[in-house]
């Protein structure tokens, strides 16, 4: 009895904390920060070509190959947006969930996720002889009770390296850092 009271007050404290902090704010999220520039660096490569449309076509084929569905595109502006829904089950989280259940704490594990890709291309260089490609990935995670658990940008450099390696193979062109 005493234990459940204690865990109850912990949950209450957590709930109180949760009300205070928004993940996106008007003050912070329309300002460019040095971290944002670092991210641009990681998410962008240049290719020696003048054919921007070919790059977009190859990107859409690559996204299709990796199971994405194209949601929106505008060739004139060099844009591709794609998404896919996948399983998000994580063995470690299930372990925590099962152990937690013994102590009366429920931490529902991740279940589903929606992954999104946002690709932009633009001609760069003094005479527009190169095309810069930038891709951003983010995901939305739901737990086993279909509640929204997380929306996050994917910031692992390996993801981006792997994307550009595949793109450069498909284009027969070398990818340069910006």
């Amino acid at each position: 009895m005493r234990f459940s009271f204690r865990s109850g007050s912990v949950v209450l404290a957590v709930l109180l904390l949760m009300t205070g902090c928004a993940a996106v704010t008007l003050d912070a999220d329309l300002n460019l920060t040095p971290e944002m520039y670092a991210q641009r660096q990681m998410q962008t490569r240049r290719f020696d070509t003048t054919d921007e449309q070919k790059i977009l076509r190859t990107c859409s084929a690559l996204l299709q190959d990796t199971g994405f569905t194209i949601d929106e595109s505008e060739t004139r502006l060099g844009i591709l947006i794609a998404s896919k829904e996948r399983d998000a089950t994580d063995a470690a989280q299930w372990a925590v969930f099962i152990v937690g259940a013994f102590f009366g704490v429920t931490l529902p594990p991740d279940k589903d996720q929606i992954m999104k890709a946002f690709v932009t291309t633009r001609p760069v260089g003094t005479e527009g002889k190169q095309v810069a490609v930038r891709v951003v990935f983010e995901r939305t995670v739901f737990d086993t009770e279909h509640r929204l658990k997380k929306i996050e940008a994917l910031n692992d450099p390996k993801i981006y390296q792997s994307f550009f390696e595949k793109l450069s193979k498909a284009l027969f062109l070398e990818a340069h850092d910006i």
Partner: protein
Amino acid sequence: MTSDRLKRKILLLIPLLGLFLLLAACATTHDRLLDMDTSQVQLRSIQSRAFDTTDKEKTMRAIIATLQDLGFMLDRADYTLGVVTASKARADSMQMQVYATLRITVTVRPRGEKQLLVRASAEYQRSPVTDAKPYQNFFNSLEKAMFLEAHQVD
């Protein structure tokens, strides 16, 4: 005689009251759908900037690049209409961060012969953003991508 007239008056009042109630319900929906809280002219001036260029494609590309820099996910873009819509939503229940979303629509149209007018309108947590500061920040970010100065318009 007098009571008869009174009765008739009351009978007339009841449907009138009903009509008022109905109208009141309509008004709230109308207010939300086409609401104009701040003076429309003032808001337009907060949300707009003029750039000394006529290159619509370059301007729209700069807007999209800025939004991508800011971590937004693009929802829609139409060159012909000159419209870009993007949103940024984040949440993390493990780190006690509650769901929050910021949506923005940016439009580009010609202003006179030598300028383009860029207007941004944002929505944060289901309310329109009417403060000048967030728009100021956005246009500061956009200026850097445009390599052009953003002029305040009246």
